[in-house]
């Protein structure tokens, strides 16, 4: 049986890769995909700890995270489509109107 720590370290590495993607990419869709990567890393940690504690609560939480992620993806992609329709650019640094 693989120790829980291995899974959590893998989740930490996945989260860090997702954070790197958010920082270095310009395409908002890829930034969004990197955010999904981070959400999935957290899900992995949840499931690993659920097995560690022998409790179903972590898995129930993952179900809710997935639901919220699905809602977030639908609304987020709709916002991206609306922004691109108005500004005609998928790049975050060219849609910087709200930036101080």
């Amino acid at each position, binding site marked *: 049986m693989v120790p829980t720590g291995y899974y959590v370290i893998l989740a930490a590495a996945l989260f860090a890769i997702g954070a*790197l993607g958010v920082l*270095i990419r310009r395409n908002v869709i890829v930034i969004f995909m990197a955010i999904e990567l981070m959400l*999935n890393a957290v899900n992995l940690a949840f499931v690993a700890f659920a097995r560690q504690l*022998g409790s179903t609560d972590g898995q129930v939480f993952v179900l809710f995270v997935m639901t919220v992620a699905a809602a977030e993806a*639908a609304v987020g992609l709709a916002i991206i489509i609306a922004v691109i329709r108005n500004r005609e650019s998928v790049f975050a640094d060219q849609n910087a109107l709200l930036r101080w």
Partner: protein
Amino acid sequence: MALAVFGLLAALLLVGALVVVLHPDSVYSALALVGVMALLAALFVTLDAHLIAAFQVIVYAGAIMVLFLFVIMLIGRPGSGGPFARGKLLWAASGLGAAALAVGLGTMVARSALPTPDAGRAEFGTTTTLARALFTTCLLPFELTSVLLLIAVVGAVVLAKGRPRA
């Protein structure tokens, strides 16, 4: 044996995640993300979370990634300027930040000495146990997610449809 399977899955998962983040073409990023989702489902199976693994494939690799690819195809090729942020300072700071995050979280986990769990009960992670928790203790949040999904559907349609004629 279990460790070898985990190592293989973990290595493929990290490679896939790096492709998502570093490939210049967003279509390849999305396809790599589908692979990452599938590998995560396999990892969930090794953690006795069979129902979660099925949902991972259906919801993430199925629904959400189809939505992503659909939007990528709808938008078409991005404009000029390259897929990555410019500036050496930004790259150095981003790389250092991500590495610090990984190392920090990793050492935190490594220091916390998690014991190897004993062999799980047979019914752990099955549809029955999960559904029992979902429909008894978590019934209210479960019903609230249906409202959330309804709001998301309406919001997505309103936002993507364009501005109303005022």
